[in-house]
């Protein structure tokens, strides 16, 4: 894993973000994400969760402050280096952002195709992934014909198919039933155990209890608080397992 010397996978330093001339939606945000940890990002609607995630998955540049991802300065990094960095990320967008004219199969296959995998290497893992999220019989369906929950599962399958080093999910269980929500969280945990750092934004407080070793970051009106000390201390790790909760 190509992280900086101190082992962090993401480092935000006094980050501020404003859209146009509006007031800042994020102010003085500083935190560090460590490899193999599981983080929840919570906060009320409008607290700035999605904005923070946009900075994390390199869809937005901050108005001020510094961001390092995988040891690379994301602010000064040349544009042509962004794709390589983005291929190490998996993103579940809040509004799914599936490609409307592609089937569920092709949507999930997209990150692998973009990364240059041969078609022969794509078919089986994509089919397996869709089967795992319960969409084996909907592989050929276009997003418009899928329910909200099905679309969300396709979006999640697309985000994890490339085994990302950092998985960023914006309200990934918002449209699925409780059983499927737990199942999807188990998928995130499984990835986390394999070394993926997971950041899940949610306003569902019940979800936080489902992943006992998770760390919690809370956003309130664009400012970050630290109820579990996640931002102050590197997580304690037991063996190869997920991060421990220092609180």
């Amino acid at each position, binding site marked *: 894993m190509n992280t900086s010397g101190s082992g962090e996978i993401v480092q935000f330093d006094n980050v501020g973000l404003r859209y146009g001339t509006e007031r800042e939606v994020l102010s003085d945000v500083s935190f560090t994400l460590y490899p193999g940890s599981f983080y929840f990002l919570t906060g009320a609607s409008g607290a700035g969760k999605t904005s923070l995630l946009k900075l994390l998955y390199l869809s*937005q540049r901050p108005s001020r402050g510094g961001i390092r991802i995988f040891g690379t300065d994301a602010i000064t990094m040349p*544009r042509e280096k*962004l794709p390589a960095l*983005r291929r190490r*990320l998996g993103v579940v967008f809040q509004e799914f952002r599936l490609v409307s004219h592609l089937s569920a199969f092709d949507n999930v296959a997209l990150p692998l195709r973009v990364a240059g995998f041969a078609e022969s290497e794509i078919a089986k893992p994509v089919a397996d992934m869709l089967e795992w999220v319960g969409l084996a019989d909907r592989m050929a369906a276009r997003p418009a014909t899928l329910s909200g929950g099905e679309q969300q599962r396709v979006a999640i399958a697309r985000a994890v198919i490339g085994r990302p080093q950092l998985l960023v999910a914006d309200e990934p269980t918002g449209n699925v039933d409780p059983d499927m929500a737990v199942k999807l969280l188990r998928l995130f945990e499984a990835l986390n155990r394999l070394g993926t750092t997971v950041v899940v934004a949610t306003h569902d407080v019940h979800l936080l209890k489902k992943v006992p070793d998770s760390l919690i970051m809370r956003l309130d009106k664009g400012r970050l608080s630290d109820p579990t000390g996640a931002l102050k201390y590197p997580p304690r790790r037991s063996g190869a397992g997920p991060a421990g909760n220092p609180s």
Partner: protein
Amino acid sequence: MSGATQAELLPQARMAGPIPWVIAIMVMLMVIAVAGGLALRNVARSAANELSGGITVQLVEARPEVRNAQAKQAAQILSAMPGISHVAAVPQAEVDALVEPWLGGDIDEADVPVPAMVDARLDGKITPDRLTAIRNALRAKIPSARVDAQSSWLAPVFGAIASLQWLALALVLLLGLATASAVLLATRTALGSNRETIEIVHLLGGTDQQIARIFQRSTALAAAEGGVAGLAAAITVVVLIGRRFAGLGSGMAAGGTLGWLDWLIVAAVPLLGIALATATARWTVLRALERML
């Protein structure tokens, strides 16, 4: 990504609608302009080759018997000069036919004396010095003899042909510019239609080059369709016009026939059109993507 997968990824990148037709029309006009320019060049070359080294001696004398004797004498003088390969008196019937449009068919020698003419061909080019030497040699024996280089008569025609060739070149350049502009606008529209998908591909790690390749491919296909159609239409037009000119029976028009190299140049026009359209699409996409994160 394979070509088919790329095409599926951004279906709106396909240059649908009028663009293949626009390219077809542009290619057709460019091919006609190029073919016209080449035909004019051939006409000029053929005429220049025919006339270079050619001189005409006019013998203006009212008395027919003296005029004919002068013509014979002029032919002898010219034949005896070095560097002159061919000398021939123009038959009187041919001279009469030349002046017939102006003077009518029944010319009375007593009223309108028609000059006798002697054509000669020099080895190599005519220079002012050679022309002066010939003039001096003839005028020493026949003071009324007038000597003209044939190419000098057609100098204004050559000038006009050269202007038309430049016009053809300017037309080709303007049509190329118009083609590039049409492709640029169509590519921008296609980019706008696919903005959401492009953003997703970017966020999944897709490169600008990958996205540009999709647009390049679809533009090349549209341009190829248009190019083939435009070339076929243009060749039909060129062949039909060529036949009409050939039917004129004019030696000068016949000189404009296109050779195999000319046809190769004509056939290369659609290829240049495809290359221009593809390069324009690539440039447009890359410029637009530079503004995206």
